[in-house]
Structures are given as C-alpha cells and as structure tokens.
C-alpha cells in the first residue's frame, strides 16, 4: 500500500510539472495541471483492486470522466470532419447503449430503434420550429419523453410476447415509419423533412477559449462534438449504474429464465415494458442530438436501413455490454471514412453500384459472422483475451 501511495505521489508531481511547463499562458497552465493531477489520481484509484471492488460507483464515475475527458481533449485537436463524425458516433453510442440494455438485460430485441431515433429527431425539429430559442436541455428532454412514450406504446405487447414476435413488430414499425411521418406531413414536413430555424452555435466562453478557429477546425464543430460526447458520457454513467442495480439484475433474471423470475416476485410485464421504454428513450436522445448536429432532419435518414445498421453495430461491438456500445459508436463514426479508403485503394468507381453498396455488404456479412461465430462481439473477444493473459 505504501509503495502504491508513493508511486502515485511521484507520478502526480511529475505529471503536473510536465504539463505546467509545456503550455504558454498562465491560466491554461493551471487548468491543465489540475486536469492532469486529477487524471493521475483517477488512474491510481482505478488500478486498486480494492477500490474497484468496494466502490463501484466511484469506479464508474472515474471511468466515465476519463473517457469523456480523453474524447474532449481530442475534439479540440482534430479537424472539423473528424469532430462531426465523432459527434454522430457519440450520439449513436447512446442509441446502442439503449438497445444493448434491452437485449443484454431482458433478452428482447428491437429492429425499430432507427424509428425511435426518428421520433426524437423529429421532436427536436418540430419543437424548435414552433418555439424559437428554447434551451437545448429542454428540447432534448422533450425528445427523450416523446421516445419513451412511443416506446411504451410498442412495449405494451411486450408484456405478453416473446422474442421473434417483438422483433417482427418493431420491424413493422421501422418499415412503416416513413409512411407514419407522411400521415402527420403538416408537422413533419413530408418527404423533405425539416430545417432547424437556427444552428446551434458555440457559446461565448468556448469561443474565448479557442479564438483561433482555423480553416480545418471550427469552434462550432468542437462545441457540437463536446456536447454529444458529454451527453454520451452522462448516458453511459446512468446505464452502467442501471446494469449493476437491483433493477438491472432482476432484468437479467427475466432474460435468462422468465418463469423463475416471476416465481421470485419480479413483475414480468413491468420489467419488459421498462426495458423497452428505456431503450426507446435512449434512441430518441441520440436522434435528437443528430438533428442538432446536422441542423436538419430528413425522413429518409430514419428508414429501415438505419435500424439494421444499429443492430449490426450493437452486435459487432458486443451486445449487452457497455464497451460494446462505445466500440459500435466508434465504428459508426469512422466506417464511412474506412469504406471510402477501401474504395479508393481497390480502384472501384466511387459512384458505382458496388461502392455504394459496400457498406451494406460488409456490415451484413460481419453481422452474420459475428452472431454465428462470436455472439459476444468485439468486446466479448477482448474480454476473453484479457482473462487469458499470463501476466
């Protein structure tokens, strides 16, 4: 214990010194030194097995803060394109967390989470068009509430249904979503969708902090990326606690043996509907953030294809796990760049049929291979490697 504490102290001083002397302005130097010191403390706490075992909430808080901090520092260094991709991916991570919870804890599956995203996305756009200059947080809460309400409606049959029926029902919702938007065309703008009345701009303090908005990196993209990363962090923290809570554990019993769960006094209908509502609310939050990042919403974005993409990402990342959702979000963020790279290096015509379908072919094949040969996805494979380590 003593060696650990002294090691931590040395590392802390070294980190503070290293950061403080490398930065020009005095105020930034102090801020960075503080961040570095906190980071060192956090890592030190996390390396202690006792802390991990006895203070799970502290552990989860620290992990979330570290992940968010690393991403935030990154957003200030990347380019506008990378930041925009990151914000779309961070919002997608929220959606994946929701679906992961639904499947990982209650054993249900939804093929309609793209449509639930659409509910959130259109809620934000419709509200912003009718109430100018609403606070961002209010708009996002509304999106979550709308998603939860629709999720509740579709969750109701879940009280009496199992597996494939639910999947089929949510599939029908996903396929029908475009037509449903058309029914309310005067609100949703029909096929062309909606534009936000004003773009979400970076607040003054951030503009002051990054006055040098360069050609390759605009302050607004830093702000939007930061916003979605923080939102994803909050969603992540809440979800990791939920997984470990009494509710989360009773859900896993529902998944593994629903009859036994009922016998020990868990209300099956309530547990199933709750899982569905949470999953839909998460999806709606992600969709709402997409509208803010894109500054517009189109119905074609939220078609059946998006729901399949969401399912692919969650399965490839690792279904039912939190790291899996983060991996899936990152894959989503940068898959287009990766596929663009493949197209460029294989000499395919970028406008050709094959290039435009490469995404679907790769994701579809990976989805089938993953579920057949490695049902726990990338995070499951990594976890197995970690547990086999010899050191």
């Amino acid at each position: 214990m003593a060696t650990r504490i002294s090691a931590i102290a040395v590392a802390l001083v070294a980190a503070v010194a290293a950061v403080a002397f490398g930065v020009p302005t005095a105020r930034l130097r102090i801020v960075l030194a503080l961040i570095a010191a906190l980071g060192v403390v956090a890592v030190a706490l996390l390396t202690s097995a006792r802390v991990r075992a006895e203070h799970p909430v502290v552990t989860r808080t620290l992990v979330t803060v570290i992940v968010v901090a690393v991403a935030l520092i990154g957003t200030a260094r990347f380019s506008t394109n990378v930041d925009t991709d990151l914000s779309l991916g961070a919002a997608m991570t929220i959606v994946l967390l929701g679906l992961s919870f639904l499947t990982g804890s209650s054993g249900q599956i939804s093929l309609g989470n793209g449509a639930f995203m659409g509910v959130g996305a259109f809620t934000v756009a419709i509200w912003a068009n009718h109430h100018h200059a609403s606070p961002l947080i209010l708009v996002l809460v509304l999106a979550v509430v709308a998603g939860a309400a629709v999720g509740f409606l579709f969750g109701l049959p879940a009280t009496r249904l199992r597996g494939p029926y639910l999947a089929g029902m949510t599939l029908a919702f996903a396929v029908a979503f475009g037509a449903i938007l058309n029914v309310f065309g005067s609100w949703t703008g029909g096929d062309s969708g909606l534009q936000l009345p004003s773009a979400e701009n970076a607040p003054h303090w951030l503009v002051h902090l990054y006055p040098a908005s360069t050609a390759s990196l605009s302050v607004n993209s830093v702000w939007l990326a930061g916003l979605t990363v923080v939102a994803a962090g909050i969603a992540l923290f809440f979800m990791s606690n939920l997984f470990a809570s009494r509710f989360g554990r009773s859900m896993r019993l529902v998944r593994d043996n629903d009859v036994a769960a009922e016998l020990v006094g868990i209300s099956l209908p309530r547990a199933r509907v709750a899982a569905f509502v949470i999953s839909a609310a998460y999806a709606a939050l992600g969709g709402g953030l997409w509208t803010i990042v894109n500054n517009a919403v189109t119905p074609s974005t939220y078609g059946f294809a998006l729901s399949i993409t969401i399912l692919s990402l969650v399965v490839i990342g690792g279904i039912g796990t939190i790291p899996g959702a983060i991996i899936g979000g990152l894959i989503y963020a940068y898959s287009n760049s990766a596929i663009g790279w493949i197209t460029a290096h294989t000499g395919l015509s970028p406008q050709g049929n094959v290039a435009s379908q490469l995404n679907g072919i790769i994701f579809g094949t990976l989805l089938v291979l993953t579920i057949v040969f490695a049902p726990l996805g990338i995070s499951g494979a990594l976890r197995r490697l970690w547990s086999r380590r010899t050191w």
Partner: protein
Amino acid sequence: MDAFLTSRIVSDILGGLTNGVIYALVALSLVLIWRSTRILNFAQGAMAMLAAYVGFAVLAPSTNYWVSMAVAIVAGVALGALTERTVVRLLYGKPEINPVVAMVGFLLVLESVAAAIWSTTSRSLPTPFSIIDWQLAGRPVAMSPFALYEVVTAVVVMVVVALVFQYTSVGLQLRAAALNPEVSRLLGVRVTRMLTLGWMLASGVGAVTAVLVASNYFTGLTPTTMDGVFAFGFIAAAVGGLDSPVGALVAGVLLGVVFQFVGDFINSNAIILVALGLLIVSLMVRPSGLFTRRTERRV
C-alpha cells in the same frame, strides 16, 4: 347486378382480395419455416426478391414469362436449401434472438448484393395478362385478367402446399419432424433433410410471391421491393398465429380487404397506422394468434 359489381364496396373487396392473397403467401412461407425450425425468417422477402431477379434480370428480357417464372422458382428453392445448409444450420439450439439477428444480417447482405449487381433502379416485369380492369356496362370492375391470375396462382400454391402436407408421405414426415424431432428421428424420419426441405418449400412459395409483387406496375422490381410486403405478411402471420397455416391465409386475405377499405374510405397513409394498431391489439389480446391453441410453458 352490374351496378352492384362495380360498386365501391365490391371494388374494395376485390382489390383487397388481390393484395390479401399476396400477404397470405408471405405469411404462409413464414409459418412453414417457423413450424419446422422455430425461426422467424426475416430474410424471407430478400430471398424471394433475389430469386425474382435471377428469373427476370439474369435471363434476357425477351425470355418467355413462364420460363422466367420457372427459373425464379428453381432459384428460390435452391437459395432456400443453400441458406438452411450454410447459415441456419449453425443457429439451431441457440438463444432465440441469435437467429433473428443472423437473418436480419442475411437480409442486409442479400439486398446490398442485389443492389450492387442490378442497381437500385426499379425494373418493370412483363405481365402475361392484361392489367386493365374488365368493364361492366361502361364501368370498371376492380379486377383485371392479371389480378385474377394473381389470385388463382396464389390459391393454386396454397392448395399444392396443403395437399403436400396432408396427403403425401413427405408431408407426413415434414409434420412429424416439426412436431417432435426426437421421436421422428427414432422412427426413421431424416429430420435434418426435412428441415432443409421445409426451407426449400417456403422459399419456393416466396419466389412466386416476389414475381407477383414485382409485376405490379407501380412498384416494379427493386432490391427493397419486398420490405413493405414482408411487413404486412408478418402482421398477417402474427395475427393469424405463427403456428397456423390456415390462420396465416385467413388473416392475410382479411387484412388485405381491411386495408383496402381503410385506404379507400380514410386515406392510403392511414393503412400502416391501422395495420400497426391491429397488430398491437391482436398480440395483446391473443399473443399466440387467433388460430392457435394456447400452450403452457415450463421452467
């Protein structure tokens, strides 16, 4: 009598019947696979779509309609066998969401591959009969020679499937393998072969369905032609009960007629809302479908 046959009500019933038999066929293929392998085949529509492409896009456009149809059916049957032997076989005995995920992945692969080969542009299929409605006393009846051909074809397919299951030795073995694989195997039924056969039969039915759907002038054949039809077919199968072929057929036809009335008297966008509403209500009232008996589950 003429006025009655061309009235709005009769027109809706006839139009609904034409759509309904299509939903019934999709539902029937789903039920066939569900009964034998307990897998809800989400790639059903995509497999059928690919079979239709093989029949009508690989062969020269001038090929005789019936030759193309036959090729499509053969392609569908072959694709069914291939799918069962390569993908589905690895999924037996796994948690029930694994096959769902795998079949959705397969759906994505098939639709993307079809779009990569034949592009997403719609292509119109030849029709063997006129699509212009018959006239009675100067007013159209909601039935054309082609629509009648659709209904007759669907009924023929249904009757053939029913006869196979009810009166042939293979049909008996198929039913036995679905009902109790263990005992059937002991009695000499080659269960794995029966499972493959079930998939072949279902995708053959699917191929016919896709050709009929794609012959529709308004939709034509695209890689996603079957998505919407599949959703309605699933709703029919779920309402009727995934275990009941009769339920699937009755529910398919009834839903077709109901949707036609909704589209005519309210508006066509409302159809999907009504369909989802019907699905939710029917699943809540009778989760196992209107035409199946209750089953108890144990720990």
